[in-house]
């Protein structure tokens, strides 16, 4: 395609009118509405599928959904997850679940937020939630343990409810 270049007259060929036009345009932007979101006060709007930190969830009865199968530990590409399985007390009424994690550790400095752990979990116990700004002063503080993960993760209401419908 042939681009037709506009014929410039001698005044336009000095580029002064174009420059003045540009300066008028930039000046018009000065009083305009600003698009900045002032971050710590105004949080960004995240949608449901945002992949933030992986966290453990509880079922509506408040029980830990994780059964310590360690699939997430095996699938995790940067090896950020470490699960310490523990046996459950067989006399408990919900003893049809045999194992639960004694400790569940995610090193948030290693995590790459790939979401493999969420995809692989047979019990749907781990989810990438909308937490993206967890910080700490030491490396140890960035290793989240079971209690912290469960606290941040909250409750997930879905059909997988292992002690009731097995």
């Amino acid at each position: 395609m042939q681009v037709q270049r506009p014929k410039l007259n001698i005044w336009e060929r000095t580029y002064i009118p174009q420059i003045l036009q540009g300066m008028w345009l930039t000046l018009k932007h000065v009083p305009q509405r600003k698009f900045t979101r002032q971050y710590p006060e105004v949080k960004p709007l995240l949608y449901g599928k945002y992949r933030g930190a992986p966290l453990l969830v509880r079922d509506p009865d408040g029980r830990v959904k994780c059964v310590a199968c360690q699939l997430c530990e095996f699938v995790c590409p940067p090896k950020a997850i470490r699960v310490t399985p523990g046996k459950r007390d067989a006399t408990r009424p919900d003893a049809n679940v045999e194992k639960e994690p004694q400790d569940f550790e995610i090193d948030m400095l290693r995590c790459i937020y790939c979401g493999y752990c969420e995809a692989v979990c047979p019990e749907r116990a781990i989810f990438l939630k909308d937490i993206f700004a967890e910080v700490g002063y030491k490396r140890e503080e960035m290793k989240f343990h079971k209690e912290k993960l469960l606290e941040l993760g909250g409750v997930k209401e879905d059909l997988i409810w292992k002690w009731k419908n097995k």
Partner: protein
Amino acid sequence: MIIELLIHFIKIGAVIGVMLGIVAYTVMLERWVCAWIQDRIGPNRVGPFGLLQPMADGIKLMLKEDVLPNHVHKVLYTIGPMLVILPALVNMAVIPWGSNLPILGREIKCVIADLNVGILFIFAFAAFSVYGIVLAGWASNSKYSFLGGVRSSAQMISYEVALGLSVVPVFMQVGSLNLGKAVEYQAQHGWMAFYPWQWIPLFVFTVSAFAETNRLPFDMPEAEQELVGGYNTEYSSMKFGMFFMGEYAAMFVMSSLMTTLFWGGWSLPFAPFNAPAQVLWVGLAQIGVFLAKTVFGLFLYVWVRWTIPRFRYDQLMALGWKVFIPLTIVNILITGVVLAMIR
């Protein structure tokens, strides 16, 4: 005698203090105006409305590690930034920032050195500031810095000619090279910017001043995209800070020179402002008028920077040598004819 000396020291202290303050807040202005033009808010965290941001910037620059790379020429590398900031500070000595301040029966002239060759002094030192950049580029012993320094020297020498020629008509009309006289002439007869034969000098001076201070659209010596940082690539900490301050101080000097030569300095075209001050408050108000005009000049610098993209190097040279220099020479002739017909 002692009192005279004391007054001088106070004037020098005040000018340097106000100048460095304005330099710090020009950086602030730059960041604000650039943000507003891009529909952003700009720095607003440090202090009320972010007004303490320059202090934070300064503290940050001071506390950074001053890296002295192994491959540099140690002496020249250290002298470079000093030579950039020095001419800008020295130049402020001859610029009249007010008419006079009558205090306790004394008439204090609002200029540090009332030189009869003021404009020549300024051009001499403005040309001197290229040494800092060239030395920094050379001493850094790195190809980017070197290219930045070479570009800077070529650019500043070319535009010095246009800058020098562009102010000739002003002094033809005034009849003296003294900057104070130029402002007094404008106070009586109207600003230079109002005379049609001074419009080309005004335009050429403004554009050449951008090139002299290495500001966009002529910031070839820095050219971040091609030359990393140009002549200041290898610098860190307060050495870099001095380049930064030198650039903004040069902007301030060029802006106040533009005010002095074309926009009537401390004068306004009505009653108490069109003659040297007789009362103290008028003297102070005239200083305020000068500062207001200069700050507008600084705003113009920033405004243009965030509007126009960088020139190509050959375009820059062609503009300087093939357009501005012939234009100013022709304009000198025209001004001569016009002045001869009027007088």
